[in-house]
C-alpha cells in the first residue's frame, strides 16, 4: 500500500481541482515593492508551485486605506497591484497549482506609525503588544471595510486568481471582532456570538457576491487564542465557524492558533511540538461540512498523513516548503530526501519593523529564486578539495563541491559532524537543529564525500591529501572572558553542561554575556538538578535576542516556573574564589554575589581562522565560509558554504 495515497490525492473545491493536499500558506515576506507584489513574489510563489504544492495563498493584501500594517505590505485596495497579482497567477498556473490571495485588515494590531492616523478596532482599548489605543469603529467604518474586502475580491478574481482568503486569524480586524478578548461593543457587532460574528459574516457575504459563484472563498480562523483570560477556545471557534460557513459562503477553513497574547504560537518555533496547532483543526473537521486546513509547524509528510486520516482535508506545510519547495514532488520519489525545515524561524520570521526580507536559514535560495540557480554548474575540471570543518558551512560546501564533480574530503576535529550546531541541538527543545546536520551529512556521504573525523587539518594535511583547493570552515571558539578572573576560579562553558562533561555542584551562578537562547537553554538544562540557580545578565532583560520574535515568552515561562532566579542590569567587575563582584549598570552600586560552587559563563563566539590565514600566506587556493569569517548563525554558514562550493 502506498502510504502517501492521501497527501497526494486530489481534492475538488467548487470547480477547482487541487492536485494534492499540500498548501503553501500566507505569510509576510517584505518582498513587496511600492506596495505591489514584486518580482521576488513571482519567483518565490512560482517555485513552490513548480515543486508541487497544490494551493498557494498569497500574503495578506490590505483591503482599506485605514490600514497600513507594515511598510512592505501589499495594498490590494490599489489598482496598481493588478499587474503583480496577475503575474503571480500566471506563474503558479503554469505548474498546475491553484492560487488565492489573502485579504486582510490588521485592525488594532497595526500602529499609526506608518499611516500617521488612528488605527481601527472593535473597541477603544490599548493593544497589548503595541500599547496603541485605537478608535472604536463607527458603523460607516464597518461598511467601508466590508466594501473594501468585496472590491478587492471582485478585482482579484477577475484577474485570474482562483479565489481569495479572508483572514480572521492572527493579525486581523475580523478576529478582533470575533473575540471577547478584544470586542467589548454593545451594539449589533458585540456581545453575543451572533453579534461578534456579524462583521465577518457581512464580509463573507459581500465577498461571495462580488466574486460570484466560481472562485474559491477561504476563511482563516483562530482556533485557540491561548489568552490568559477571555480568549476564543476551540469550541468557541467551532461555533463561530459553523455560523460563518453556513449557506455555502466559505469553501475551506484554515485553522490557526495564537493571538495578541501568543503571537509566537502562530508559526511556533522548534520548541513546540510539530502538531501543536492541530487540536482545534481536528475539532472543526468533525463539525464542518467544508474542508478544513491544518496549519502550524507541519514539516513532515508523516504528520500530514495522520492529520488527513483524522478527517482534516488540507495541510499547510509553509515553512517546510520554504526550506524545500520540492517537498511534494520528492514525496513521490523514493530516496529523494527533502531538505528539512527545522522550525528555527531565523530567516522566515520577518514580523518586525526593520523589514528584513524573508530568507531561510537552511535554504539560501528562498526568496532569491530569480537570481540563484537551483544547483551549480558542473566544474570545468574535477579537483581534489579539502574542506576543513564539518559544521553546517563545511557540510554545505562539501555537498556543493561534490555535486559539481569535485573529489571532496572533510577534516573535522571532533568525532562527529555538526560543529557547534551539534551543541545547539543539545539545548532542551532545540533538538531539531540536529536534523539539518543529519541531512547534510547523509547527503554528503551519498555524493561520495569522505570524512576524516577527529583530525585537525593543517598545511601538511593539505599536502598529504594533495588538495588543490581548500575550504576553511573552521568555525568559532568562545571568546575570552571580558573581566578579570582570579587564580583558582574556573568557569564552565555551556558545552560542559550540555554534553555532561563538566562537574556541576549544587549552587550555580550562570553569567550570560551573549543574550541568546544558549544561556537560558543551558540554565534550563540545569534547573531541577541543583539547589540554587542564579542567572546573571548585564542587559536590561534576560535573553534580549529572543524578544523580537516573541519566543522569549516560552523560555521565560519555563525558566520562571522552574525557579531560576534572574539578576539583570549588573555588570561583572571580577570573579573571585568567593563569588562574583558586580556593579549595578544604573545604580553604580557594587555588590558581591557569593555562595556558589559552580560558575558558568556563556560568551559570544570569536572566529577561528588560523588555518585560513596560514594557507593564504602559503599561497594555497583557500576560501572561507561561516563562523570562521565572522560567527553569525546557521543561515550565514549554509549560505557561505554554498557559495564557497560554487567558487572552486
Amino acid at each position: 500500500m502506498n502510504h502517501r495515497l492521501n497527501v497526494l490525492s486530489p481534492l475538488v473545491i467548487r470547480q477547482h481541482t487541487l492536485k494534492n493536499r499540500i498548501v503553501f500558506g500566507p505569510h509576510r515576506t517584505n518582498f513587496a515593492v511600492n506596495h505591489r507584489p514584486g518580482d521576488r513574489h513571482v519567483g518565490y510563489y512560482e517555485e513552490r508551485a513548480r515543486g508541487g504544492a497544490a494551493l498557494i495563498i498569497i500574503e495578506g493584501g490590505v483591503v482599506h486605506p485605514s490600514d497600513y500594517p507594515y511598510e512592505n505590505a501589499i495594498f490590494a485596495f490599489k489598482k496598481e497591484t493588478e499587474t503583480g497579482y496577475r503575474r503571480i497567477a500566471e506563474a503558479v498556473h503554469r505548474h498546475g497549482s491553484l492560487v488565492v490571495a489573502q485579504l486582510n485588515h490588521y485592525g488594532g494590531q497595526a500602529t499609526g506609525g506608518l499611516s500617521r492616523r488612528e488605527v481601527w478596532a472593535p473597541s477603544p482599548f490599548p493593544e497589548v503588544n503595541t500599547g496603541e489605543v485605537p478608535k472604536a469603529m463607527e458603523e460607516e467604518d464597518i461598511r467601508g471595510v466590508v466594501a473594501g474586502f468585496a472590491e478587492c475580491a471582485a478585482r482579484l478574481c477577475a484577474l485570474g486568481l482562483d479565489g481569495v482568503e479572508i483572514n480572521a486569524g492572527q493579525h486581523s480586524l475580523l478576529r478582533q471582532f470575533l473575540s471577547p478578548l478584544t470586542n467589548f461593543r454593545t451594539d449589533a457587532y458585540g456581545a453575543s456570538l451572533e453579534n461578534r460574528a456579524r462583521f465577518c459574516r457581512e464580509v463573507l457575504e459581500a465577498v461571495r457576491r462580488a466574486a460570484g459563484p466560481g472562485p474559491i472563498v477561504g476563511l482563516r480562523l483562530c482556533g485557540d487564542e491561548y489568552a490568559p483570560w477571555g480568549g476564543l477556545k476551540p469550541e468557541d471557534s467551532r461555533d463561530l465557524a459553523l455560523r460563518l460557513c453556513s449557506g455555502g459562503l466559505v469553501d475551506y477553513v484554515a485553522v490557526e492558533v495564537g493571538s495578541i497574547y501568543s503571537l509566537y504560537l502562530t508559526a511556533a518555533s522548534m520548541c513546540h511540538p510539530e502538531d501543536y496547532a492541530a487540536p482545534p483543526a481536528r475539532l472543526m473537521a468533525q463539525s464542518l461540512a467544508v474542508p478544513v486546513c491544518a496549519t502550524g509547524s507541519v514539516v513532515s509528510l508523516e504528520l500530514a498523513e495522520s492529520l488527513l486520516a483524522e478527517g482534516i482535508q488540507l495541510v499547510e506545510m509553509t515553512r517546510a516548503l520554504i526550506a524545500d519547495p520540492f517537498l511534494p514532488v520528492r514525496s513521490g520519489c523514493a530516496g529523494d530526501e527533502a531538505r528539512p525545515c527545522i522550525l528555527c524561524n531565523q530567516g522566515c520570521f520577518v514580523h518586525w519593523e526593520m523589514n528584513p526580507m524573508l530568507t531561510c536559514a537552511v535554504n539560501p535560495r528562498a526568496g532569491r529564486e530569480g537570481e540563484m540557480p537551483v544547483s551549480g554548474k558542473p566544474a570545468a575540471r574535477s579537483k581534489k578539495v579539502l574542506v576543513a570543518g564539518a559544521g553546517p558551512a563545511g557540510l554545505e560546501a562539501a555537498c556543493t563541491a561534490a555535486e559539481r564533480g569535485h573529489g571532496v574530503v572533510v577534516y573535522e576535529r571532533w568525532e562527529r559532524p555538526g560543529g557547534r550546531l551539534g551543541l545547539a541541538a543539545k539545548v532542551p527543545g532545540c533538538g531539531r537543529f540536529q536534523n539539518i546536520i543529519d541531512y547534510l551529512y547523509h547527503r554528503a556521504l551519498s555524493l561520495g564525500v569522505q570524512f576524516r573525523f577527529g583530525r585537525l587539518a593543517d598545511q601538511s594535511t593539505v599536502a598529504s591529501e594533495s588538495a588543490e583547493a581548500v575550504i576553511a570552515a573552521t568555525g568559532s571558539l568562545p571568546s575570552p572572558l571580558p573581566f578579570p578572573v582570579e587564580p583558582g576560579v574556573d568557569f564552565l562553558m555551556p558545552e560542559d553542561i550540555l554534553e555532561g562533561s563538566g562537574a556541576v555542584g549544587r549552587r550555580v551562578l550562570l553569567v550570560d554575556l551573549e543574550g541568546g537562547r544558549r544561556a537560558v537553554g543551558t540554565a534550563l538544562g540545569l534547573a531541577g538538578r541543583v539547589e540554587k540557580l542564579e542567572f546573571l545578565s548585564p542587559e536590561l532583560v534576560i535573553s534580549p535576542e529572543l524578544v523580537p520574535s516573541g519566543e522569549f515568552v516560552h523560555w521565560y515561562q519555563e525558566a520562571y516556573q522552574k525557579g531560576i532566579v534572574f539578576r539583570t542590569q549588573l555588570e561583572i567587575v571580577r570573579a573571585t574564589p568567593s563569588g562574583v563582584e558586580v556593579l549595578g549598570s544604573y545604580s553604580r552600586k557594587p555588590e558581591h554575589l557569593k555562595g556558589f560552587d559552580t560558575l558558568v559563563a556563556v560568551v559570544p563566539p570569536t572566529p577561528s581562522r588560523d588555518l585560513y590565514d596560514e594557507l593564504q600566506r602559503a599561497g594555497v587556493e583557500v576560501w572561507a565560509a561561516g563562523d570562521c569569517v565572522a560567527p553569525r548563525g546557521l543561515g550565514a554558514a549554509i549560505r557561505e558554504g554554498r557559495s564557497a562550493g560554487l567558487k572552486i
Partner: protein
Amino acid sequence: MSSAYRYLFQNIQIGPVRLNNRIVFTAHLTNLSENGLPGERLAYYYRERARGGAGLIITEEQSVHPTDRAYEKLIEAYREDVIPGYRLITGMVHQYGTKIFAQLNHNGNQGSSIYTGLPLWAPSPVRDPLFREVPKEMDRFDIARLVASYALAAVHVREGGFDGLELQASHSSILRQFLSPLTNHRRDQYGGSLENRLRLVLEVAAAVRNVVGEQLALGIRLSGDEFTDGGLTLEDTVEIARRLDQSGLFDYINTSVGIATRNLYLVEGSMAMPPGYSVYMSSAIRKAVKIPVVAVGRIKDPVQAEQILRDGHADLIGMVRAQIADPWLANKALQGMNDSIRTCLSCNQDCIGRVGLNKTIGCVQNPAVGQEKTRGEGCLKPAPKSRLVLVAGGGPAGLAAAKTAALRGHRVILWEKEDVCGGQVRLAARLPYREEFLDLIRNLMHCLEEAGVKLRTGCTASPEKILAEKPDAVIVATGSLPQHPPALASGGENLYTVRQVLEEEPELGQNVLVVDQQGFYQAAGVAELLAGRGKRVEIVSPNLYVGQGLGPTLDLEMWYRRAHQLGITMTPNVTVLSVKGSTVRGVHNYSGREVEWHGVDSVVTAAPNRVNDELYFALKGKVAALYRIGDCLAPRRVDAAILEGYRVAAGL
C-alpha cells in the same frame, strides 16, 4: 545684519568654501531615502533648511561600501546612480546661497548583515552591544578595498555637485572603531599605537583628497569622548584632532559625543540633558587646532549659539533638532524675530524615536517634516471661501487646527473649558525634567490671536452653543479622560490616576505603588516626582522592564540612574489584579505566581486614557462638516494631535 548678533551671522571660510553664517544643519538620519538612493523627499527636506537660512548643510551619512547597510534606508554612495539624486539636492540647496557637504561613512560593526547577507567589517571581531553581531576582522585586502571605496564615493560626491565632504569618525563609524582601543585590538600596522590607529583615517583622507583636490572642503567628525571604560577620552580625542590638523588634509573638525550603539542618549541628548552639554568638547579641541571647529549638543536657540561663538568654544554651531522643529530659525534670528521661532523641545519622540524604529523622520511640533514639498513654508494656501470654523478644545490638536484654519483665512472660534489652553501638555510639563514641554504650548499660542482666532477660554462648548453659532465646520478636539486600568476600574479610596496626582495634588501616604500600563513618562515621571518628595515608591509593570517607552526617546538611561538614586523600586513582568485597602495583589506573567504587597498607602495608576467623544457624537449628523482630531479620536501622543489638527484644517 541684526545688531543682536556679532558672531552668528559672520562669514567664515572653510577651505575653499565661504559660508554666509555659522549655523550648520549637521548630519542626522532621516529615513527619507528611496530604495537606497536620495530622492525628491530628501532634497525638499534639505531645501527647506536652506531657504530658512542655514549657512551649511551636511547630509546624513552616505555608505561607501556594500558591507555597510546598518539600517534599511541607508543611502548607498558607492552606486553610480546616486549622482542624479545628489544633483537634485545640491541644485535645490544652492539656490538659496547655502553650502552643502556630503558625509561619507561605513558603520563597521555598528550594523547588521540582515539586508546584505555579507559579513560586517571591523578592525577586530568585537561584537557591538546593540547590533550584537560579530564582525569580520578586516584583512589587508579589505582595508585596501575600504580606502578605494571612500575614493569612489568621493567621485560621486564631487560629480553630485557638493561643496565638500565630511568623514564620519564619530559615534557610528568604522574610522572611530579603528581609532579606539575599545574596538581595535589589531597587532598589525593599523592597531596598537595611536599612530597605527590613525593610519586608516589618514589613508582614507589622502585618497579622498586625491579625488577632490583643493576644490572641495574636507572635514572630519570626531566623537569627543566615548564615555566607555577602555575607550577614547576627550584627552585622546584632542590629541587625535591635533594630529589630524597637522596632516594638512582637513579643512574643519566637527564634533559629536559617545557611541551611537552604546550610549546614544549622549549623542542626541533629551530634554533631561543640559542645553549645550557637549560644547566643552569642541572648546577643548579648538584650543589644539588651527582649523574651524563645530560645536553640537542641544543648542536650541540663536542667543545660546551666539554666546558659544562669543566665548570662543567653537567657530560653527551645529543645530539639528532646532532646525527640524523650525527650518526658518536662522532667518528669523537674523530678522530679530526670535519670538516666532518654534523652539525645539528635545523631546526626541519623532526625530530620534521614529527614525530608530525604521520610520521616516518627523517632529511633534512641525507636521511638515519629511513632507516639505507639500507642507513647507508657503504651501498653505488661502481657503477658496472663508468659512466659520468652530474648534472645541484648546489642547494641542485644537490649537493646531485653529491656527492653521485661521492662517488660511477662515473665521475661527476656539472654545476651551479651562482658563488656559494647552490641555494635558501642561500636566506633562509638571513632571521632573519635562518643563520644556511648555514651549510647545507657547509656540502654538504665539500669534494665535493675530492669526484671527477668537479665543473663548473658560467656556465649555456644548452642542447647543455650537449649533447656535451656525458654523460651516466643527472640529472636535475635546481630548481624553483619565481612567484606571480595567482590573482596578472600580477604584478605591487610596487609588489615584497620574492626572489626579498632577492636577489635584492629593495628600499621598508614605508608601506609594505606581501601577504602570503605559511604559512611558507618565508613570516614570510621577514616580520620580513623588520619590523626590520623600515617598517610598515602587513601580510595577507588566512589561519586560519598567519604562520601556523611554528607550526610543533616549530618556531611559538618565531616568534609570535618577530612579536608582531616589531609591525607586522596579518590579517588571507583573500584572496588578486588585487593590483592597492597603493590600495589592498581582500575578507574575511568566511564573504565574501570586505577588502581594501589604502596607501600600497610595496606589497611582498610569493607564491609557479613554476618549472624550460625547460632543462629537452629540453633533454627529447635525452639522455639515464635522471632524474629530487628537485624543478624542483615539488617545495617543501629542504628535498625532498636532498632525491631525494641521491636516484637517489644511483641507477645510
